[in-house]
């Protein structure tokens, strides 16, 4: 637990002193209460179901079919590391197969969240679909924005389609959209943008909220043709995925400038290569 905020000069993170979880983000142009946590959806299906009965369609490669609302994963420990260049908040959780590091690099306008999920346990026969959810006091109502395959940002309205009347039968998955590079919510005063390092599913299921699907492990084929559950057993234990989200909070007027600049920097990031220099000095080099 920590009382003092963590800051890099542009972004300040306030932690909840009781839980150590993120409570507030403050930047040069915005100040918003933000909570972020891991959650998981119990995916429909068990190996006793028939995937060919549509009313019992298991969640799988083609369909995201959660049984109910997402279940939060309780935080366990928080460790804070402060250095001259980067400050880190390391969160561990009750489930040891999820963890994350939140970083503030000196002078940068964003917070970086490096998440790690897996191997997702499925010995209980339950498909699990893990998300990172941000809950804020931004009054975004039912609107949110996602990119469309890396092209322009598209406005999405919860429980609505722009060109046909939607009968909402899937309140969660029916509101998921592809996120190839970024998703954001906003109101008149603030914009919360999250950039992803890979294509993920994303949604805003309530005002002020946005979530991204990180990893899935299912127990049954969904009957749409792939013929396998999503269940890679690398090293006999299931896949571990490690990735990053970049979180920007700003005045909406400068949101596009910030996320476009950052997107260029992270999606065409500099490439590293290395050479051994054992037998030389820095002067000779």
């Amino acid at each position, binding site marked *: 637990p*920590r009382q003092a905020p963590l800051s890099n000069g542009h972004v300040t993170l306030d932690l909840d002193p009781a839980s150590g979880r993120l409570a507030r983000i403050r930047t040069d142009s915005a100040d918003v209460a933000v909570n972020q946590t891991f959650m998981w959806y119990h995916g429909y299906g068990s190996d006793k179901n028939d995937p060919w009965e549509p009313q019992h369609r298991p969640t799988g*490669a*083609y369909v995201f079919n959660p049984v109910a609302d997402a279940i939060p994963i309780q935080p366990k420990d928080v*460790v*804070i*590391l*402060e*250095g*001259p*260049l*980067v400050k*880190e908040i*390391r969160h*561990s959780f009750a489930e*040891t197969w999820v*963890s994350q*590091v939140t970083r503030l*690099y*000196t002078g940068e306008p964003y917070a970086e969240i490096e998440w*790690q999920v897996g*191997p997702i346990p499925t010995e209980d026969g339950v498909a699990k679909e893990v998300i990172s959810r941000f809950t804020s006091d931004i009054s975004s109502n039912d609107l949110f924005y996602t990119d469309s395959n890396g092209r322009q940002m598209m406005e999405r309205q919860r429980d609505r389609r722009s060109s046909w009347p939607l009968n909402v039968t899937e309140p969660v998955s029916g509101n998921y959209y592809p996120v190839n590079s970024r998703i954001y919510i906003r109101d008149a005063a603030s914009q919360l943008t999250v950039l992803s390092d890979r*294509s993920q599913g994303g949604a805003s299921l309530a005002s002020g909220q946005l979530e991204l699907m990180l990893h899935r492990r299912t127990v049954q084929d969904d009957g*749409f*043709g*792939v*013929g*396998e559950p*999503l269940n*890679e057993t*690398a*090293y*006999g*234990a299931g896949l*571990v995925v*490690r990735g990053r989200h970049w979180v920007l909070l700003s005045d909406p007027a400068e949101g596009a400038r910030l996320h476009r600049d950052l997107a*260029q*920097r992270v999606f*065409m*990031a*500099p*490439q*590293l*290569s*290395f*050479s*051994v*220099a*054992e037998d*030389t000095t*820095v*002067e000779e*080099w």
Partner: protein
Amino acid sequence: PNRVDILRNAMAINQHHDAVTGTEKQPVADDYVMRLSEGTESCQQAVNDAFSLAGLPKQSFCNQLNTSSCDVTEGHDQFVVTVYNPLPRAVGHWVRVPVTGLSATVADGDGTVVESQLSPIPEEVLRLPGRTSTATYELVFRADDLPPLGFRSYFVSVSASIAVSQHMHKA
């Protein structure tokens, strides 16, 4: 063949909807990965040739930096990191490389020391299934003002004997 085309072809194949969404069978996923790996390796050879024209020694590429693993940086006391900027504008970049030492010094092309920091690699990463790296720290420094479509190199000396991680503390 044009060595860059191998990755172009692999990328084109991986734009099939099964590859984008993950609806392919596992052996097909493995094949997609193999093609991308072959294409990446071929491009790395091409990059090496380009660097040799600029007088740089043969470069290694660390494909497992996503598990904080790199044979060169964790297996040698001195190495050079070359940072290539593919954007047509100058940018800065935070470099993170895994090391086994307890202190490190980074110098730029002028021999000027660049501020750096050692951060312990999270326990969850050290326990990753299949990870064989011995690195326990990541060296962090900022590569500033990388020229458009150009590169800068940094000389890194790592020592196992002097702890300079006093900046880091557990709260």
